[in-house]
């Protein structure tokens, strides 16, 4: 039986609850604000919303079901997707199928976390059984250490230089200066990037995301319902998800996208060359490069040449992470998995204000999540169009 497409699914109402470095509030507070903004954005009361999907690291001991009572919701469809940076895509995929099947009509997808002064350390210490047993006792460097290995290996294998990663980071900072909610508000020069202090060699300060508090969200509903509500929306054209791909690779240089990208483009009837912009999951620049390769924008190992050939600002030759990405906006925990999605919606609904990609009609968003041990396990991508 061939797979059904995502016809008729609309994605709408991009919401970012402005990030802050530290918050004394609980995750519930951030998720509640996000939901309220989503409802306001589509002019519905919470009683009109019948589907709810949640992603968060810091909601414990609660999950999505506890949140229904906390927020006074009574959905007939509920999902909890604790997949970190892969959550946004996975939430979207599941919600799309629920809307298509009629299990729910209007689904609010929220993702977010709080960040107390010590909560990042506690999250790392208890991130997973494998992390607790086999990573955290080794210096407790968190994802910095894990990505330092991948970055060092990638640099050695494919000849990428710090300047190449720096080009991505500087371009994204340019984009961020046009996104009001970005936590980083000062321009970044390549010289500053190169001169930054080391964090976990070869990673330096501007290679690493900054943990913060915040939330992002969007609404999944039918195109028909979106039209009746009179809200802007994007159509879901194709989407993939894969977990623990290439498990026997000694070190992660590729993820599930490389396995499923043909499927993705076939669903959408497009190819990489058709994309007007790309939002990668960018907690570290090496991961952006890996996605560009695995999603077919260049061949494996040609990332460095691709970077040197393109410019990545919103108005450049290859608009990438047009709101600044996590590297310049901040990483609000699980919200990092939705940051690119909401930015894609803004671009496709012409709400991207000063960084609007001209004539943007097709965009690709990818997610990547859960450094369970030595590599990210979950990968996903979606093509959205208007």
């Amino acid at each position, binding site marked *: 039986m061939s797979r059904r497409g995502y016809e008729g699914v609309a994605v709408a109402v991009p919401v970012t609850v402005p990030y802050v470095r530290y918050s004394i509030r609980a995750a519930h507070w951030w998720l509640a604000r996000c939901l309220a903004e989503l409802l306001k954005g589509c002019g519905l009361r919470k009683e009109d919303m019948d589907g709810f999907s949640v992603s968060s690291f810091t909601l414990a001991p609660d999950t999505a079901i506890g949140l229904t009572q906390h927020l006074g919701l009574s959905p007939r469809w509920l999902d909890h997707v604790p997949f970190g940076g892969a959550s946004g895509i996975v939430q979207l995929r599941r919600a799309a199928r629920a809307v298509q099947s009629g299990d729910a009509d209007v689904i609010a997808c929220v993702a977010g976390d709080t960040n107390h002064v010590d909560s990042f350390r506690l999250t790392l*210490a208890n991130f997973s059984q494998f992390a607790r047993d086999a990573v955290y006792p*080794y210096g407790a460097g968190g994802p910095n*250490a894990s990505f330092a290995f991948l970055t*060092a290996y990638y640099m050695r294998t494919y000849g990428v230089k710090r300047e190449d990663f720096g080009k991505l980071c500087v371009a994204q900072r340019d984009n961020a200066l046009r996104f009001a909610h970005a936590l980083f508000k000062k321009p970044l020069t390549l010289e500053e990037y190169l001169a930054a202090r080391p964090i976990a060699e070869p*990673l330096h300060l501007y290679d690493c995301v900054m943990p913060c508090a915040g939330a992002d969200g969007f609404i999944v509903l039918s195109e028909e319902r979106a039209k009746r509500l009179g809200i802007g929306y994007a159509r879901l054209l194709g989407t993939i998800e894969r977990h623990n791909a290439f498990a026997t690779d*000694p*070190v992660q240089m590729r993820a599930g996208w490389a396995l499923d990208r043909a499927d993705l483009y076939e669903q959408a009837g497009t190819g990489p060359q058709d994309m007007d912009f790309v939002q990668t999951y960018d907690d570290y620049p090496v991961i952006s490069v890996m996605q560009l390769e695995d999603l077919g924008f260049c061949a494996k190992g040609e990332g460095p040449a691709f970077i040197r050939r393109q410019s990545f600002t919103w108005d450049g030759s290859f608009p990438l992470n047009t709101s600044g990405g996590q590297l310049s906006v901040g990483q609000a925990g699980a919200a990092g998995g939705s940051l690119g999605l909401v930015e894609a919606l803004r671009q496709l609904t012409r709400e991207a204000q000063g960084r609007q990609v001209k004539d943007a009609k097709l965009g690709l968003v990818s997610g990547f999540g859960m450094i369970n041990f030595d590599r990210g396990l979950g990968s996903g991508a979606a093509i959205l169009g208007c």
Partner: protein
Amino acid sequence: MLELPKRKNPVLRTRLPTLPPAARSRIALGLTAAAALGRFELQQCRDCGTVQYPPREACQGCLSIRLEWKPQSPEAELLAATVLHHSNDLFFRERLPWRLGLVRLDCGPTVVAHLHERVAPAPSRVIVAAKLDRAGQAVLVALPDKEANMAEDRQLREFTCDPKFRKVLVTDGKTALGQAIVKALAAAGADLIWVGYAEPWKKFAGFDELKPLPQVTLLPLDVTDSKNVREVAAEIGGKVDILVNNAEYHRTYGISNRPGVDTARAEMDVNYFGLLRLAQEFGPAMRSRGADGLASATAWVNLLSIYALANFPPHGTFSASKAAAHSLAQCLRAELRPAGVRVINVFPGPIDDEWNQLLPPPKITPAALANAVVKALQEGVEDGYPGDVAQEWLARWRDNPKALEKELST
């Protein structure tokens, strides 16, 4: 190359000990159990042979739950290295920068490991070992070769209890074993060795040979005398980095071939209460000095006996006293752990001394046992079973404790 630390300024604050993250899942403690004995073991599937890491409950190859801890080849390749300049954990934060490696074992898995400073840049060949860290939990360490010494590396020295540059108390210098331990410690570079002796009027062979050793200071110490132990601890306790408790009372009686409890009581008084007295008096000061620089308080060695695992009826009351001491040593281990001070229990088979005269060989010589004690300190193991007899008893005991009990009672 490490150099003798400068003398400490006595008015400077001694920092409080911190530990690396100690939380582990129960299944991961299999790595610790092997590392405590100085072994490198990973889980291997009995059905498909896949070697697993990190530790898990089921085979990632075939979903079999028949995973067994098996010795694995330590040969590996360093894939990538990093140097941490930032850590979220206090222990590492105080010790930055810190080297780590991503290492592919020849037997399959990729692992994260602490990296010895002599390891060549990636890609390069390394030897992986499982070692106990300061929290007493196993971690993997990538070494440049099989001869590499962890103590020569500033960062990995933290995981050993190397006697080099350290101040050591040996509680009984009157036995051949005590004297051998003192000489082995001196040869291993101990900075100062206090040597206790009880009942000073009794003459013992070899004791006078210790006096000329420049590291040695002799001092009266009788572990059966609470007041004496307290006074000695008050005098030197704040400086003892390693305490080797080899004081032992050994007679060769069971229950029925020696009327009364006097001898058994004397065994308990030295072997069990002696340890308790030492632990109460020296423990607090050692706990406070777990982070006292390069020569911090680091280890407590107990001379136990393989008879602590299962009673050897011809030496029945002695066995019982060593079992009691073993149990107490586990308590001491828990209490010293927050300071990162390691309790090392040594379980020798019969020592070639007066009290094992009638036991057939092999018997471990005092010199061999002394070397085993020093090696345990250098390699940072937690339990040592030196000698052929101890190894055989251990193997029998691990295989089937009830069978060993029956074998020993006939």
